[in-house]
């Protein structure tokens, strides 16, 4: 069954027809980047919502998170693929359903989906900041939004970076859902290759290429987790105030 694995001829064919793999690889990377931006921006907004005093904002965030975490991504993506063009038609009043490129469906699909997870990461991060920080900020005259921006959110970075990288890693893998709607991504192009030349080389190559993106992220997670645990932080001598610092 696995005879083909060591078949030099097949590997030669594979290496000669890497074009579609690289196309898919690049396409996937682009979907990842745009999807990541969507999930980070929307996730941060929703995460902040979930920690505000406004019941409405908290409810919006809760409903969003529960909906996207409790329905499968492929179903969501199929839904965008089928319903999206008609929804856009209704909104824009176009004469026929508006075609949506697989790139947009992919980026929006993983973006919206992972925003729910990012939101939970951000919420946990914010809740890990002691209440006294907001009070100190407000006692100095910072508004709540300013306090979040300058004081609360920066303090969450150390805690949230590892899980955010984990989310990125999952997001990369989840872009493969695009193969379901003939997306032109890495998985889809690998599938095409497989249907002509057999599955072994095709799927192995796809795995290698996904691995190339994901493994460095996994290493980064490990590094960040270690760094977050490092307790005594080194002194930083700000260049602006050398004299008084050196006086000591």
């Amino acid at each position, binding site marked *: 069954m696995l005879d083909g694995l060591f078949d030099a001829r097949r590997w030669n064919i594979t290496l000669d027809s890497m074009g579609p793999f690289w196309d898919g690889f690049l396409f996937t990377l682009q979907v990842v980047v745009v999807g990541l931006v969507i999930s980070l921006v929307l996730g941060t907004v929703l995460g902040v919502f979930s920690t505000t005093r406004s019941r409405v904002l908290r409810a919006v965030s809760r409903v969003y998170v529960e909906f996207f975490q409790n329905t499968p991504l492929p179903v969501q993506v199929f839904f965008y693929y089928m319903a999206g063009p008609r929804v856009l038609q209704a909104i824009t009043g176009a004469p026929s359903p508006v075609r949506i490129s697989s790139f947009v469906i992919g980026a929006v699909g993983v973006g919206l989906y992972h925003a729910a997870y990012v939101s939970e990461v951000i919420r946990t991060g914010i809740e890990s900041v002691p209440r006294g920080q907001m009070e*100190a900020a*407000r006692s*100095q*005259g*910072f508004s709540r939004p*300013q306090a979040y921006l300058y004081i609360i959110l920066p*303090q969450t970075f150390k805690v949230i970076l590892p899980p955010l990288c984990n989310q990125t890693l999952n997001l990369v893998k989840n872009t493969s859902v695009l193969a379901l709607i003939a997306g032109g991504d890495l998985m889809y192009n690998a599938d095409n290759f497989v249907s002509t030349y057999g599955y072994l080389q095709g799927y192995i190559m796809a795995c290698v290429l996904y691995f190339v993106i994901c493994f460095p992220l996994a290493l980064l997670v490990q590094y960040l987790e270690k760094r977050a645990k490092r307790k005594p932080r080194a002194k930083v001598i700000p260049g602006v*105030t050398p004299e008084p*610092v050196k006086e000591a």
Partner: protein
Amino acid sequence: MADMIEIKGLNKYFGDLHVLKDIDLTVAAGEKVVIIGPSGSGKSTLIRCVNFLEEPTSGTVSIDGTQLTRKNHLEMTRKYSSMVFQQFNLYPNMTVLGNLTLAPIKLQKKSKEEATAAAMAALKRVGLAEKAGEYPQNLSGGQQQRVAIARALVTKQPIILFDEPTSALDPEMIQEVLDVMIELAQENITMICVTHEMGFARQVADRVVFMEDGRILEVGTPEHFFENPENPRCREFLNKILH
């Protein structure tokens, strides 16, 4: 002396809990007021109403003749008051210098150079100029609280509110913080200080306020207060903490 803080008919509820009951208190500009009282009597809540960290349920708090409202309180805080907390509440992700320059740069729109110079001057006053590049977690509790005082000073508001600034400190660090506060008290700054440091109260306070169960039961000069307080509850409390 002109009135700096005027509290009138102040009531505060947390849900059904009636925490402040018809509080009236006026503090003159430059006056030093010490608030004492048993735990849960509402001391923190009272001073937190002065910078609107707590919103009064009814009654008014006016600063320099202007009543605090939801609308103006941030602007009023920027202009009039700073606060020092029991738990220091320094920003742990910033250096000491960063803690001191954040508000001047972001809120008072000072240049980085200007803010840094002011911060270093404030740090010198509390004796910690050499710690400018350090992170709060690498400082002792006493040092952290002195940095917090410097952070309250650097924005130069006329009022400083202290909420039990030495209660979280190891005994050997209390005096270094009190010394800074005593030095501060020489100035024309208006101070309201919740503390159980009676030596400090004697030395610095113009008036001492005794609170219990959400009410002010006695107000007087330290002499009056420590020699012959009229209210029996107050006498009882003083006996407890002085002996």
